């Protein structure tokens, strides 16, 4: 049996990472969710319902596209893009929210809450709430609401209440704190839709399961194109859900290299970044043990990334495990390099990548340059960049 098939264990541990580090009040809903998901995970009717939603509502499968002009400009290996930007709502986040939305309905929860950074997860959650007729509250850092005003408007149109979080750094981490507080206060009727492979068990497991659809598709599609597996996979890592979804079905293919790309912000050396795997240490935050950006006293550090979706001091526990195993290489791309990749992909292929995904595109180009033309790099284009046009335009004015 494959090593990864056994993980996480029944308490949600990936080696020393993961687990359930939450207040006592939250243990009951977490265990209830664990029981419900354990049943539905094996339930053919639920899986068929999910598959229908993914096909007819989300728009799966998404294509794999060979970015020939970008590959030519870059030099080196062929670059392929997994087009999660073409899903309904424009990002991979919907794969997970549709799954958790169905789960909430099966559990009889009428109210769903979520946190969001760039707004992709918030929009995807609000969309599913509208689709399933559930009450929806989205927590968002006040700073992120400023950066992502259009997505705030979208969520409100979808019928969600967007609550501004003024505490702390007013970004994703603080929104997650507030969502957990809401959950602990309303445990009886509320389902917390976590947007990434982080949080207490079973979230890292179930979000991985819901996102692995993109990796399974990609595995088949790229084999159809190449008659073999790709040489490398590249995906951005904030919390790490799109990367986990892509990597998971390839973990035992030893010939496939994997690169997780964290937000280097102003540069790793400046300390102003959002790269816990590259520049952090293990600790406990938001319900699990994982790599964190923290100081010597265990206080969580402020992060910076041009991409609100990557601006998070923690990361999913399975990534921490994969880093320690050496199975995935984690590296960083800074703000400037991500912006350059955004512009280059837009200009050469007519595809606007989300700023999150631009980090992966930049790292994919970097890697391609070191490889031969017959080699292939598969980059997960986790979302579309329409939401980030304002941010990109702002940096133009400054330069």
């Amino acid at each position, binding site marked *: 049996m494959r090593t990864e098939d056994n993980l996480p264990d029944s308490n949600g541990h990936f080696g020393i990472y993961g687990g359930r580090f939450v207040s*006592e*009040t939250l*243990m*009951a809903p977490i265990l209830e969710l664990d029981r419900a998901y354990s049943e539905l995970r094996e339930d053919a009717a639920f899986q068929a319902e999910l598959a229908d939603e993914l096909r007819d509502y989300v728009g799966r499968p998404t294509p794999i596209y060979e970015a020939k002009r970008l590959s030519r400009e870059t030099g080196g290996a062929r670059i392929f893009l997994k087009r999660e930007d073409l899903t309904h709502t424009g990002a991979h986040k919907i794969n997970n929210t549709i799954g958790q939305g169905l789960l909430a309905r099966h559990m009889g929860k009428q109210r769903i809450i979520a946190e969001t950074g760039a707004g992709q997860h918030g929009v995807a959650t609000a969309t599913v709430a509208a689709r399933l007729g559930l009450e929806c509250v989205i927590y968002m850092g006040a700073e992120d609401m400023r950066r992502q005003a259009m997505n705030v408007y979208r969520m409100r149109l979808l019928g969600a209440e967007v609550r501004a979080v003024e*505490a*702390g750094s007013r970004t994703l981490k603080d929104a997650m704190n507030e969502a957990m507080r809401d959950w602990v206060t309303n*445990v009886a009727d509320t389902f917390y839709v976590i947007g990434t492979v982080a949080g207490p068990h079973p979230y890292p497991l179930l979000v991985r399961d819901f996102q692995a659809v993109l990796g399974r598709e990609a595995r088949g599609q790229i084999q159809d194109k190449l008659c073999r597996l790709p040489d490398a996979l590249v995906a951005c890592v904030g919390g790490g859900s799109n990367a986990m979804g892509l990597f998971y079905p390839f973990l035992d293919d030893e010939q496939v290299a994997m690169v997780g790309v964290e937000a280097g912000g102003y540069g790793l050396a400046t300390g102003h970044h959002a790269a816990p795997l590259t520049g952090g240490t293990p*600790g406990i935050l938001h*319900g699990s043990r994982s790599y964190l950006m*923290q100081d010597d006293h265990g206080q969580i550090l402020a992060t910076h990334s041009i991409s609100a979706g990557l601006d998070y001091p923690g990361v999913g526990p399975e990534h921490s495990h994969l880093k320690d195993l050496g199975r995935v290489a984690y590296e960083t791309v800074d703000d400037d390099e991500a912006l350059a990749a955004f512009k280059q992909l837009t200009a050469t292929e007519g595809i606007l990548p989300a700023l999150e995904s631009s980090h992966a595109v930049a790292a994919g180009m970097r890697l391609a340059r070191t490889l031969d033309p017959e080699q292939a790099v598969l980059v997960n284009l986790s979302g579309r960049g329409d939401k980030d046009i304002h941010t990109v335009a702002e940096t133009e004015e400054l330069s």
Partner: protein
Amino acid sequence: MNRIDTTFARLRREGRKGLVTFLTAGDPVPEQTVPLLHTLVASGVDVLELGVPFTDPLADGPVIQRASERALAHDVSLEDVLEMVRAFRADDPHTPVVLMGYANPVERMGPAPFAERAAEVGVDGLLTVDMPPEEAAEWTRPLPGAGVAPIMLVAPTTAEERLAKTVELAEGFIYYVSMTGVTGGGGLDVASVQEHVEPIRARTDLPVAVGFGVRDADSAAAVAEAADAVVVGSALIRTVEAHVEHADAGALREALAAQVADLRRGVDRHQTASN
């Protein structure tokens, strides 16, 4: 014998209920913490809970979060908190001190080094909000060996089978969280507290302290009916917060002393009533 056990044994002998108060270490400024702790004891507090400030206090409401932020503005670390306890101990060898906070600062120091240092400076217990019994077994193991009691939480949502695990790990006292929600919330339901404390008592002889939602003498008196001790946190921090801008240490001490004396009268109503 641990100071917590001694204190609860004394209270039991006297037929009284305990008053436990929470302050965040370093709030409003680090220099005031030790004098404030002495003020609390002089005004009738039996057990001191001292909050270790943390950047992301998820289980707390905005009042305690702001207290953490004020302390962190002065860079108050877990090591600083331990030194505050050492300083407090120099003048008070008897009153139990329980550190309360989140797992990560202790994780960063390492549970074993923490236990050793905590015992050395005179800490009597550790309550970690985000450390349920499933994860705590390994983590809290060094504590009892060093003489530091692992204080465990029970919530209204805690299922019967998990209660067994919790009381197995716990020492000192059981902290019963009187409501679902964060600290400083409203909606205390005394009947519900009574109902939930019973199964705890059926499983352990440890005293049960009840917190969340106690804000004045009346609510303290009501909770004291069901509990061995009443915990008050956010209500005191509101008083601290009201004095932040004036930075008048004397006025803050006086205000806290009056508030605690009032809470004490509330808690002691139980004794008066039963005599």
